[in-house]
């Protein structure tokens, strides 16, 4: 099971395009910087189209909900490699952990923009309300950020050749990885629980008592999809070989998890007699079909076996699953809420600038880390070598 070498577009050919990407990057960052200035000195009202009727926009719907979900590859891969001990997936573990760590750090940055009083972000530490889903999410995200920092630390220690801290991390590894998976399970599902409190506001195509479970399963699916997506781009950008057999394995798992999600979603809709709503000619219904098709397409393609010889098709399946996931989260958090609240919300350009800025920052930091840290070529210090 050695990694098969597959022909990929050469980096040289892309060199001219890279300068264009650089221009786009700096344009986004300038816009985000200007927005930051407005946000800090003139308040939320000056940079968002939020209102008393519509208090949560894309900073919550995309940056937080999608950000946390897209970072789910970290705990999924940690569970596969460390807990289920399927060691052959180890080569793609570190990039997945980095993706997760960056994702969560960017979620915190997004919260610093969205919270009315970011200077009080620490309040949930000392002012408790255990009945609040938001309180639980705050604690889980904070603790999981700590876990991710510790899970990622070995990459830095290996680069610095710090042996002793490395050994300390290895010593606490078992409880650490278990804590990471439990914390992720709790808050990935809790992000769905946040919406259980609005039965009269959220469109019945999305409001369901199963929201926590649906959020959890779809997070696992998008975590797998993101790992495929990120491996594909790493292979292209850093001229390394594609971990093809591993990605195929993740693809098959993705098909299974997405199928579970879709079956559960349809069963839930039919049990709540909400399926008939999918026949009404409304914008929410069209978006429902977009979401379902984006998630169903990769299932069909992956089960057909058409991806076996076509890495690009597997990559497109992951993109479709990711877009389907994003559609689902935005439908729950933004479009599914609009009708009842009577609010029309379209994000202001400054809101989009921050969102794009965070995504761009994520790509840039990943690139830097891949350049300077042993992200791909790491040599696992196995227990045998450790004891000698």
């Amino acid at each position, binding site marked *: 099971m050695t990694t098969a070498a597959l022909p990929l577009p050469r980096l040289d050919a892309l060199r001219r395009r890279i300068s264009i990407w650089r221009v786009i990057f700096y344009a986004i960052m300038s816009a985000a910087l200007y927005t930051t200035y407005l946000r800090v000195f003139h308040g939320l009202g000056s940079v968002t189209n939020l209102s008393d009727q519509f208090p949560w926009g894309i900073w919550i719907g995309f940056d937080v909900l999608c950000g946390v979900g897209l970072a789910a590859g970290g705990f999924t891969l940690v569970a596969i490699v460390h807990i289920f001990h399927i060691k052959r997936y180890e080569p793609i573990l570190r990039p997945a952990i980095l993706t997760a760590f960056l994702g969560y750090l960017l979620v915190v940055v997004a919260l610093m923009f969205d919270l*009315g009083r970011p200077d009080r972000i620490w309040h949930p530490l000392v002012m408790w309300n255990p009945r609040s889903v938001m309180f*639980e999410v705050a604690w889980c995200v904070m603790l999981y950020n700590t876990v991710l920092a510790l899970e990622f630390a070995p990459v830095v220690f290996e680069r610095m050749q710090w042996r002793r801290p490395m050994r300390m991390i290895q010593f606490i590894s078992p409880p650490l990885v278990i804590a990471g998976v439990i914390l992720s399970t709790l808050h990935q599902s809790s992000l769905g629980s946040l919406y259980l409190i609005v*039965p009269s506001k959220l469109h019945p195509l999305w409001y369901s008592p199963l929201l926590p479970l649906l959020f959890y399963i779809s997070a696992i699916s998008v975590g797998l999809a993101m790992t495929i997506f990120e491996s594909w781009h790493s292979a292209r950008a850093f001229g390394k070989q594609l971990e093809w057999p591993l990605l195929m394995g993740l693809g098959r798992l993705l098909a299974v998890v997405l199928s579970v999600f879709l079956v559960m979603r349809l069963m839930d809709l039919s049990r709540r007699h909400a399926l008939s709503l999918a026949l009404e000619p409304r914008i929410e219904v069209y978006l429902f079909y977009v979401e379902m098709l984006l998630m169903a397409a990769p299932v069909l393609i992956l089960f057909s076996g058409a991806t076996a010889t076509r890495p690009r098709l597997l990559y497109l399946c992951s993109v479709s699953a990711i877009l389907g996931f994003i559609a689902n989260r935005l439908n729950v958090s933004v479009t599914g809420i609009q009708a009842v609240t009577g609010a029309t919300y379209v994000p202001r350009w400054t809101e989009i600038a921050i969102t794009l800025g965070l995504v761009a920052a994520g790509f840039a930091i990943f690139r830097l880390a891949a350049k300077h840290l042993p992200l791909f070529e790491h040599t696992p210090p196995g227990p045998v070598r450790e004891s000698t």
Partner: protein
Amino acid sequence: MANALLYDSTLCVGCKACETACAGRWKLPYNEKIAEEQTLSDHKLTVVQTHGESFARRMCMHCAEPTCASVCPVGAFTKTALGPVVYDASKCIGCRYCMFACPFQAPVYEWGSTAPKVRKCDQCHDRQMAGKVTACTEACPTGATLSGDRDAMIAEARKRIAENPAGYYPRIYGIQEAGGTGMLLLSKVPFEQLGMPKNLPDRPLPPLTWNVLSFVPDIASVGSVLLGGVYWLTHRREAVAQAEDRPQGGVS
């Protein structure tokens, strides 16, 4: 017993004396332009809306089991023994989950401020503590707004409907909505026509999240033991395989 307000839309003449009194109590600006505004906002914590030929007062409903108090991550909202739901701005981090979750869309935000607070009616908690009625009740020239013991208010509302069945829509809004509110409404027309939310469950909303959240300790403990077990099994299997490799190799 908790206090409540009773607002009788059929007695309201839309003079907005309650708005003026409310602005005065909160030291908020009030002028003709603000009087025209038909929505709650950070400078208008109660509003008299015009719906066709009827008036309708909107403000915080002071739920018996407030959704805002249950969702707030830092516990900034408290349901007081007297009835009012009060807000402690010094705790608030500005996540606005209270605004998102409130079934009546009552809490509003200081969007223009760099140190914003949530704002909402506190049913003149300080005045009630001192044994006085709310500022809006005191200002109301027609008796459209009354305040007092909730059971007494319900009895009064029932009496009004019984004495003049033709003049009222035969229900009191707030007895059961979202588990009951500290603001009761009477109207000549169905309450949807006054802009009140329909489809609200008759039960309190907080259990919707609590029913799930209460499983967190179980998931954390059982899940940790389960994953710990899986970890032990998979790693033990490998350790055994490695240990057996050598003696087996030596024997055979």
